[in-house]
């Protein structure tokens, strides 16, 4: 495998303070945030006359109907284009020139967009709803056949491309650690460090991981403040993407004799471990959001969809993941000050051995690794992987009480655990 070499930063240079693009939005505009976080292309549309509208209004300008988001075609035509050479806002000022387009969306409205490497009015464009570095939804108009995004600095400024970046995967023993590392290396990661807890225990994956270029395994115990502080002191300022894979999968009913001990063990790693990691690695990452070509870009938490919908047979486990999800909002808010994104990847039952008793479909390691890479490349904030997780999220969104009853009656995973 070819290994690209990335120039080291001149240590004499000042690390730039991360700036953010303008983040103020109306409350209605945050409907778009939800769609952009998940990578859906949905635009404001009238629930009465079905006319799309932009920017999002409080009522349809054609018939005064109520507005909701609706899936829209992504095509458009470039009407006009310019380059902001002297932006008013400091974030754009230091990134100028910045391309801006005026696009007629195929669904009807006109929109001002970030613009890919296109110049000529009349060009067909592919429009994407994505998150900018402030974590707010914006429209990007790029070439119709996808390509060339690798070379579009405006696009790259918004996504979390692993290329050239130094990555920490917190738990090498996670069932998807090997394919995830392989995928990151293939995507051009400069270095991947994997944390290994209980390093005195045998670790079957060591050979496969250490055979990859630029990959190393270091001792890391998320249950130990000292362990995290030691690693953060060593490499905390050199991590641009952190992928927290740590998990302790212990299914069990609340009334089972093992429940209190196991719930505590899960909490210790999944919830408190996240807190320790955030305290250890968060500040350096947030401060390096604009550190030249290798700026810190993303923090990824692999969490369980059962943190959102809680089956009683996974009582403690679901509670720990719910706690981690709640905590991740705080982590996200602090990382956001530096423009660093927090992406949550939710899965249902995986092919991890601890889900052995759960019926298929279960998420494979390859599928999970692919979803993480896809989410980083698109700059997403919420990724739901696998049919079960998607099904649960859809049920939850539609009727939270119904899913609670369905899970309580064991209709989803009856007797699995």
């Amino acid at each position: 495998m070819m290994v690209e070499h990335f120039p080291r930063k001149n240590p004499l240079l000042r690390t730039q303070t991360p700036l953010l693009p303008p983040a103020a939005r109306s409350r209605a505009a945050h409907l778009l945030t939800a769609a952009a976080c998940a990578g859906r292309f949905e635009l404001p549309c009238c629930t009465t006359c079905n006319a799309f509208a932009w920017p999002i209004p409080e009522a349809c300008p054609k018939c005064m109907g109520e507005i909701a988001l609706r899936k829209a075609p992504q095509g458009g035509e470039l009407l006009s284009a310019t380059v902001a050479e002297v932006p008013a806002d400091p974030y754009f000022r230091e990134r100028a020139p910045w391309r801006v387009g005026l696009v007629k969306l195929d669904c009807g409205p006109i929109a001002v967009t970030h613009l890919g490497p296109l110049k000529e009015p009349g060009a067909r464009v592919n429009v994407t709803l994505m998150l900018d570095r402030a974590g707010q939804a914006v429209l990007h108009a790029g070439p119709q056949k996808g390509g060339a995004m690798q070379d579009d600095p405006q696009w790259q400024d918004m996504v979390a491309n692993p290329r050239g970046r130094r990555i920490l995967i917190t738990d090498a023993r996670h069932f998807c650690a090997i394919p995830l590392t392989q995928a990151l290396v293939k995507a051009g990661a400069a270095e991947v460090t994997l944390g290994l807890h209980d390093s005195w225990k045998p670790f079957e994956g060591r050979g496969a991981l250490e055979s990859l270029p630029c990959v190393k395994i270091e001792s890391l115990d998320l249950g130990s403040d000292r362990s995290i502080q030691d690693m953060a002191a060593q490499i905390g300022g050199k991590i641009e993407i952190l992928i927290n894979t740590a998990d302790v999968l212990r299914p069990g009913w609340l009334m089972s004799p093992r429940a209190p001990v196991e719930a505590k063990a899960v909490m210790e790693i999944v919830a408190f471990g996240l807190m320790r990691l955030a305290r250890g690695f968060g500040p350096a990452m947030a401060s390096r959001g604009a550190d030249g070509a290798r700026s810190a870009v993303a923090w990824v938490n692999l969490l369980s969809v059962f943190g959102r919908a809680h089956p009683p047979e996974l009582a403690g486990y679901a509670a720990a993941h719910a706690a981690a999800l709640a905590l991740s909002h705080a982590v996200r808010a602090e990382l956001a000050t530096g423009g660093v994104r927090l992406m949550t990847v939710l899965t249902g039952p995986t092919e991890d051995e601890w889900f052995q008793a759960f019926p298929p479909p279960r998420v494979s390691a390859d599928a999970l690794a692919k979803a993480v890479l896809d989410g980083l490349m698109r700059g997403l904030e919420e990724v739901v992987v696998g049919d079960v997780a998607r099904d649960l999220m859809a049920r939850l969104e539609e009727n939270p009480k119904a899913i609670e009853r369905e899970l309580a009656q064991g209709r989803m995973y009856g007797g699995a655990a």
Partner: protein
Amino acid sequence: MSAAPYTSVVLCCPVTVDYTRHSIRPAAWWVARALAGLAAAAGLSHRDFDGFSLASFTLGPDSAIGLTQQFGLSPRFLDFLPLGGVAGIVGLRRAARAVQAGDADAIACIGADTNGPHWFRHSLETFSRASQDAVYPYGSGGPNVSFALIARAWMAANGVRREDLARLAVDSRTNARANPNALMQKALTEEEYLAARPIAPPIHLFDCVMPCAGAEAFLVMREATAQALGLTFVRLAAAIERHNAFPDDPVMLRGGWVQDRDQLWSMAGVTPGAVDLVQTYDDYPFISAMQFQDLGLCGPGEVADYLRAHDFTHSGDRPHNTSGGQLSGGQAGCAGGHLGLVEAIRQLTGTAGARQVKGAKRALVSGFGMINFDRGLGSAAAMLEAA
């Protein structure tokens, strides 16, 4: 139904509070100076004005009503128009009908704004909900980027080149050099215009106005009132306004003037050849050119030839923005919409000094305002006649 004529409505007492690039004074201070200027010009106390019409962006948290108490006014007509460059003529239309109907006798019409080193950027951040949600986060270029997108499409559609627009910028500067209050006094050549730093192509440095602090003001009253006070005045012959015209045009290739210009000319009872001078809203030269075409000063698609064929200086064959306009005078926020009216009153009363257009009898003034999202929303125009 056609509008009733503006019977004996007049404008008088043109007042400009000298512009400064930045000011440590709030907008209310600039309003006060304008009120004092109007009172001095009219030979009245400012408390004698029974109408107060104010356009301002930077008055917050106040609006016009708070200033009545602060400055001791007791008006029976009160208007507040934070509408940008269309506010001058919109305010004039309302004031004209109020004095015509007897709802007020003397209305002080003022456009005033202050400006500090960070005011312009702050105003962009909060300019409108559409801008906040769907424009400012895209490169934060402010109006320069928004107008660049329009300019590129409009120039292509009309065959207008930068060389054609240079004429307006250069002539504006020539006019400004005969106006001591204009902030830009350095001569500008076509070469300098064309070689200027790109801001958001096709917008370059000399296409842009300089935000500043200042105020423009005039009085609206009935002719008999002006005569009783011994004031020189000009008559309001016609006026139009339109907001969010042609909402389905994909990009702004025309303004609302196109929709209402026939009414303007028929109400004024003249044809374009009878106009002695034109004051357009010149936030960019191409916007002035758009107004020439949309108001019917040239035929559709003829604007490029029109720009090439004429001299727009105060001594030229098409005197335009004779004070230097905003391009060379500075853009004092909402006062930019009053500037053309104030300059037209001066010209038609023969008080324009070194830049006086000889024998000026009729002036066409237009206003344009509020790039809420992708286009300017307000368009207005007024015809003024010497008494």
